[in-house]
C-alpha cells in the first residue's frame, strides 16, 4: 500500500509539533519575525523582512548582540494571512526565552494580537499601520504605532497638497479623490479626510478597489471623468502597480498622485517604467544605502557570507528594506532602554514594553547608530505611543525614490478627538480603565 509512506510522514509531522517547542539553553533576546515571503503580497513582504532580519543579525555579527547578549531572530511565515499569523504568534511567543516584541506587519494580524498582547505581556509595534487609536497609550498599554499613524499621514499629505496649492486656504473647491484598497487598512484614512474636507472646504471622494486590484479600469474612467486635482492612494500589492499604470495611461499628472507609505516602494513603480516618474508617496525615512549602517550590513553579512538571504544583496537600501531596518533599529534601542531601566540583561516582554515606552532616539543617537538622517527622531511617552507624528513626501524620479519635502506635522485639532473617541469606545467595550500617565 502506497499510503503507508504517507501515513508515516503524517504521524511524524504531528509528533514533531510538541518537540518543536523544546529548546531552552542560554538566555537570548528572542525576536520573532512575522515574514510574508509568499502569497499575493510577498513582493512587499520580502524586503521588509530582510531589513528587519538583517539589522538584528548584523548586531550579532558586528557587536556580538546587544550589551553582550546574543539575539535570536525567529522567522515565521504568515503569508499575510490572519490565521497563519495567529499560528505563528502562538508558536513563537514562548520560543527561547520568550518573544520580546511583535511586528505583525498586517492590519488583520495586528487586530488579532492587540487583545493578546496585554494577556501575554508582549508588546506590539505596529509601525505606522494597525489600529490608529492605539496611539493613545493610556488605553493601549501594550501597543505602539510610532512614528505616525494613517490618520496623521492623511492629514500630513493634505498639508503637503495645501503647500503646493499655495496655502491651506487655496484648498477650497479643490477636488481630492482617495483610491483605496477595499479592506480595513484602506478605509483607515476616510474619516480623517472627511473631517479635513469639512474644515478646508475641498471636495472629497473615495473610490474603493476590491482585492486584489488586478482590474480597476472603471475606477480610473471615473477619475478621468471627474478630473480631481489630487489623488491619494491607500493601496497594497498589485493594486498599486495597476493604479500607477492606469493613472499614467489617462495622463493624470504624476506629481499630483500621492500614495500612502505602503504604496511607495520600488515594486510599485517598476512595472509602469518611465511613466511612473514624478509619482509621490508618504515617507518617514530615507531610501538608499548611503548610510553607515548599510555599509555595516553589507560588510558583516553579505560580504562575510552570513546573510540570511544572500540573493537579495542588490536590494539592500530599497524603501521597504529600510523600513524593516528602521523598525529593528528602534527595537534594538528599546532593548537597550529596557536593560537599563530594569538593570538586567535578561529582559522579558514586559520589560521590553517599558523600554519602548522610554524610547528616545534623537538625531545624535541616530548618528551614533550609523543612521544619521535615515529617519526622524523618536520619543515615546506613556500617553503618546505614536511618537513624533511626522510625515514627509518622497518622489520617484524614474530611477530612485527621493524625499522631496519637509516633514509635516498633522492637524491634531482634527485627529486627536477622533483618537480619543475611538480609544474610549474600545476601553468601554473591553472594560479597560485608562492608565494615569501623570
Amino acid at each position, binding site marked *: 500500500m502506497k499510503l503507508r509512506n504517507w501515513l508515516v510522514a503524517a504521524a511524524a509531522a504531528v509528533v514533531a509539533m510538541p518537540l518543536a517547542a523544546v529548546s531552552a539553553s542560554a538566555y537570548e533576546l528572542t525576536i520573532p519575525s512575522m515574514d510574508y515571503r509568499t502569497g499575493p503580497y510577498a513582493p512587499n513582504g*520580502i524586503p521588509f523582512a530582510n531589513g528587519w532580519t538583517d539589522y538584528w543579525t548584523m548586531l550579532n555579527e558586528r557587536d556580538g548582540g546587544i550589551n553582550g547578549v546574543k539575539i535570536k531572530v525567529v522567522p515565521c511565515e504568515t503569508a499575510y494571512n490572519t490565521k497563519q499569523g495567529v499560528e505563528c504568534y502562538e508558536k513563537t511567543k514562548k520560543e527561547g526565552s520568550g518573544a520580546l516584541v511583535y511586528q505583525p506587519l498586517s492590519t488583520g494580524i495586528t487586530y488579532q494580537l492587540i487583545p493578546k498582547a496585554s494577556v501575554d505581556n508582549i508588546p506590539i509595534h505596529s509601525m505606522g499601520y494597525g489600529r490608529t487609536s492605539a496611539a493613545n497609550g493610556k488605553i493601549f498599554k501594550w501597543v505602539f504605532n510610532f512614528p505616525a499613524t494613517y490618520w496623521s499621514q492623511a492629514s500630513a499629505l493634505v498639508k503637503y497638497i495645501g503647500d503646493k496649492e499655495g496655502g491651506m486656504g487655496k484648498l477650497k473647491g479643490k477636488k481630492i479623490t482617495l483610491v483605496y484598497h477595499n479592506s480595513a487598512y484602506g478605509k483607515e484614512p476616510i474619516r480623517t479626510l472627511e473631517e479635513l474636507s469639512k474644515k478646508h472646504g475641498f471636495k472629497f471622494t473615495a473610490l474603493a478597489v476590491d482585492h486584489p486590484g488586478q*482590474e480597476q479600469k472603471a475606477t480610473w474612467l471615473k477619475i478621468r471623468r471627474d478630473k480631481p486635482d489630487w489623488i491619494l492612494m491607500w493601496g497594497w500589492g498589485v493594486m498599486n*502597480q495597476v493604479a500607477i499604470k492606469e493613472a499614467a495611461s489617462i495622463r493624470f499628472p504624476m506629481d499630483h498622485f500621492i500614495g500612502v507609505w505602503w504604496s511607495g516602494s520600488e515594486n510599485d513603480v517598476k512595472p509602469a517604467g518611465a511613466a511612473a516618474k514624478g509619482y509621490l508617496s508618504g515617507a518617514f525615512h530615507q531610501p538608499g544605502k548611503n548610510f553607515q549602517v548599510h555599509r555595516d550590513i553589507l560588510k558583516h553579512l553579505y560580504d562575510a557570507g552570513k546573510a540570511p538571504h544572500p540573493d537579495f544583496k542588490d536590494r539592500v537600501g530599497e524603501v521597504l528594506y529600510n523600513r524593516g531596518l528602521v523598525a529593528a533599529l528602534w527595537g534594538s534601542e528599546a532593548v537597550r532602554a529596557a536593560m537599563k531601566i530594569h538593570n538586567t540583561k535578561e529582559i522579558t516582554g514586559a520589560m521590553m514594553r517599558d523600554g519602548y515606552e522610554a524610547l528616545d532616539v534623537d538625531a545624535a543617537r541616530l548618528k551614533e547608530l550609523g543612521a544619521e538622517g535615515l529617519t526622524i527622531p523618536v520619543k515615546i511617552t506613556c500617553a503618546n505611543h505614536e511618537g513624533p507624528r511626522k510625515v514627509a513626501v518622497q518622489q520617484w524620479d524614474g530611477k530612485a525614490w527621493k524625499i522631496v519635502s519637509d516633514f509635516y506635522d498633522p492637524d491634531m485639532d482634527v485627529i486627536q478627538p477622533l483618537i480619543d473617541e475611538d480609544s474610549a469606545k474600545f476601553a468601554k467595550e473591553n472594560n479597560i480603565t485608562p492608565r494615569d500617565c501623570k
Partner: protein
Amino acid sequence: MLFFMETVISGLLAGIMYSLVALGFVLIFKASGVFNFSQGVMALFAALTLVGLLSGTVPFTHVDNPSFAIPAWAAIPLTIIVMIIVAILIERFILRHLVNQEHIILFMAMVGLSYVFEGAGDIIWGSDVKVIDLGLPHGAWDWLLDTHGLYIEKIELVAAAAAVVLVVVLAAFFQKTRIGRALRAVADDHQAALSVGISLRYIWIIVWSVAGIVALVTGVVWGAKSGIQFSLSLIALKALPVLILGGFESIPGAIVGGLIIGVGEKLAEVFGGEVIVAIFGRWFEIDPGIFTATENWFAYVLALIFLLFRPQGLFGEKIIERV
C-alpha cells in the same frame, strides 16, 4: 455620451482580456471534461518562465545572470516547450490516473494542481514582481485621445488582437487539421473516439499544450498591465463568470460572454452608484460611493441572472432529461 462610449469600449476590451483566460478553460473542458481551475496559475507560471528566460534568472537561485539572458525569439519557443513538457507531466501523473472519475474529483485535483504550480513557480523563479519587456505598447492611444478625446489603452488593443488571432488559429486548427478533427471527435464522444483509434492520452497532451500556450499569451498580456506576480493567478476568478455565461464548451461563448461581462461590470461600477441614487435617493440617503469595488461580484451576479433564464449558458446545449 463620449464618456459612455469610452466606458463601453473599455468594457469590451476588458472583456476580451477575460475571454483570453476563459479560452484556456474552454479548450480543456471541451476535450477532456476537466474543469481546469489551475488555468490562472498556469498563466502565471508560463509568464514567470518567459521572464526568467528573458532576464537570465538562474532557476532556484532567484538571481539574475545577464549572461544567461535569452532573446525573445528564442525565449518564447522555449517557454512553449516548457509548457508542453508541463502538459505531458500533467497527463502522466494526474489525468491518466483520474480517467472516469467524477467531475468534482477532477475539479479538486485541478485546484490541487494550482497549489503545485504556485509553489513550483515560487521555488523556481521567486516571488518578486517581475517586469516583462517584450516591447508591448503602454499607455493611451495618443492619436485618438488628442483628436477625439477618446481614451483607449494600447495594451488592450494588443490583447484584443491577440484574442482574435488566437481564435482564428484555434478555429483553423479545429477545422482544418487532422488532430483538430480528432479533438472534436473526442469532445463529442470519448468512447467513439477511442473505437476509431484516437489515443486519448495523445489528445490530452495536445489540448493541455494548447491551453498552456493560451496561458502564456494571457500571462504576458495581463502581466504587461500589472507586472508578473502571484496576483496574476487570481485572474482565473475573473474567467469563471464568463464561462458560466458563455457555456463551458463554447469558444464563441467565451468571447461573447467575456464581452458581456466586461461591459456589464464597467457600466455597473461607473454608473451603478448614480443609478441607485437616482432610483432610491428620494426615500433613503445613499452615498453613491457605496457602489464601488463591485467588480469582484457584479460579474457573478450578472452571470447568475443570465443562468436563471438559460441554465446551460448562452451557447451551451439544451439539456434534455430522460428516464
